[in-house]
């Protein structure tokens, strides 16, 4: 069945986009600037797993946990070393974005210098035969990807709504000045949001590495998809960003059913354009995304 296969593919790729988008959106909502280097953070997660598991032969689960935590620390480091000094000087969002693109180019090329430009495989799972689910062929790994993504979204939702830290984050996202007045340390909140967001990027990196292999320049495509998903759903609103990413997955997969597959990225950009133009705060965005 073509339709069920397309739906299955949309859900799988949508989960990866959504993992990228929810970290991006979390960082955006508490910091109010575009952390474009979130894409290269995903790639760093993947290459860390490659280093610990494939090169250093650590047990897979240990290697994964170490990679995710180090990826989270990379996010905090980029905030502390680059964004915070710029913010303290009163730099505009445009400057922060350019610095962020600088980080992308910097680390993409550092990875290329260290690991080479060729494609790396993790080699943890053997190539599995697809199972037949309602006429769609799906590998066990793809099911695991979907389940991990959904579990993380639920955990993130519970964290943001039930814990004190999560509620403080939402307070900063809503109105950082007011949050400061009632005694919330917004720099600390920024640290946490970069850490949690980048950990999610690390998980996305590991899943991408297992599903599609690794190459240094892959981060750009991922952040563009994550960003597009976030814009579709509303960049300030994490559940919206997740749903937007799944919508993007569906649009891409059904789009290349009609168009040559080379246009996959152009479909994402077409959607991004349409939303920026006609609905810049997204389908579910609460606040206006475009600054007046």
């Amino acid at each position, binding site marked *: 069945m073509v339709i069920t296969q397309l739906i299955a593919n949309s859900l799988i790729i949508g989960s990866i986009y959504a993992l990228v988008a929810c970290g991006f959106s979390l960082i955006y909502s508490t910091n109010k*600037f575009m952390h474009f280097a979130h894409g290269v953070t995903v790639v760093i997660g993947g290459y860390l797993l490659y280093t610990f598991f494939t090169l250093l032969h650590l047990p897979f689960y240990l290697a994964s946990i170490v990679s995710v935590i180090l990826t989270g620390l990379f996010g905090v480091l980029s905030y502390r070393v680059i964004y915070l000094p710029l913010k303290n000087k009163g730099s505009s969002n445009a*400057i922060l*974005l*350019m610095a962020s693109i*600088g980080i992308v180019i910097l680390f993409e090329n*550092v990875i290329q*210098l260290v690991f080479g430009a060729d494609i790396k495989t993790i080699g943890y799972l053997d190539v599995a035969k697809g199972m037949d689910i309602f006429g769609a062929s799906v590998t066990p790994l793809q099911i695991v990807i979907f389940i991990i993504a959904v579990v993380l979204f639920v955990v993130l939702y519970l964290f943001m709504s039930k814990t004190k830290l999560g509620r403080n984050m939402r307070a900063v996202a809503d109105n950082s000045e007011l949050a400061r007045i009632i005694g919330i340390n917004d720099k600390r909140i920024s640290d946490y949001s970069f850490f949690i967001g980048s950990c999610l990027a690390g998980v996305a990196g590991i899943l991408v590495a297992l599903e599609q292999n690794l190459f240094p320049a892959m981060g750009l495509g991922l952040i563009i998809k994550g960003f597009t998903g976030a814009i579709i759903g509303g960049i300030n609103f994490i559940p919206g960003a997740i749903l937007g990413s799944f919508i993007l997955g569906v649009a891409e997969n059904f789009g290349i059913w009609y168009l040559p597959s080379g246009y996959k990225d152009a479909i994402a950009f077409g959607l991004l354009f349409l939303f920026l133009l006609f609905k810049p705060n997204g389908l579910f965005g609460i606040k206006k995304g475009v600054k007046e």
Partner: protein
Amino acid sequence: MISPYILNILIFICIYIILAVSLNVAIGYTGLLNLGHVAFFGIGAYTSALLTKAGVPYIVALICAGVFAAILGFLLILATYRLKGDYLALATLGFNFVIYSLMLNMIFLTNGPLGIAGIAKPSIFGLAIKTNFSYFIFVAVICTISVSIIYFLMRSPFGRLLEATRDDEIGLRVLGKNTFALKSKAMVISAFFAGIAGSLFAHYITYIDPTSFTLPEVILIVTIVIVGGLASIKGSIIAAFVILIVPEALRFVALPSSILGPTRQIIYALILIIILMFRPRGISGRVDLK
């Protein structure tokens, strides 16, 4: 006689001066953070290459390259004129990727990833430009003309209106000026010269493929503009020399090309980040990036 190596660098510097000065019209003078400039550069290169292949005289192809890029510049601003700052930056970056995937996928026209080879060296009114030295003279002349035109436009009342659009768009509208018309004129001028630079690039290299027009190229041009300083033509010219000459030092260390490429990109990225952190107005910028 100048050595071929120096000539090669000088030709590239001239091309990048046109690119940086024309991008400064958008980013510096008008306040449009356009990251899609490379798309115009690429369109210019492809237009000129395909037209001369079809037998059109070079000078016509050169002008068509500019005009075609300018039309796309108008379409881009038509689609994005309500966006500002970082949103505009990402939308225009997206435009870049759309053009890139068109170059890659419209195989009947662009030959896809294989690119277009054997682009003829230009000949103008029967005067063939064969050697690199004569090509350098040709590029230098076009570069001087382009920069002069932009310089005088930016000093004219029109240029001051552009700067007013950047500084206080609503205020200018209150005075009855059509800021959309101003922004689109700025974008059209900016794109036109990028198209011209694309044509000069294509006929110098004689081979183009879509990978010449991707993100690293965007970063290179934007870095030149930021290092030179916004709304400063002098700054962009000096910065083009500095940014293109600095990585040439690497050539003397005799690194293999697999290391040379990434190292060059790392240098550009570090220059960009360091300038933004410690000297955001660059060499002689007059305004901040907003």
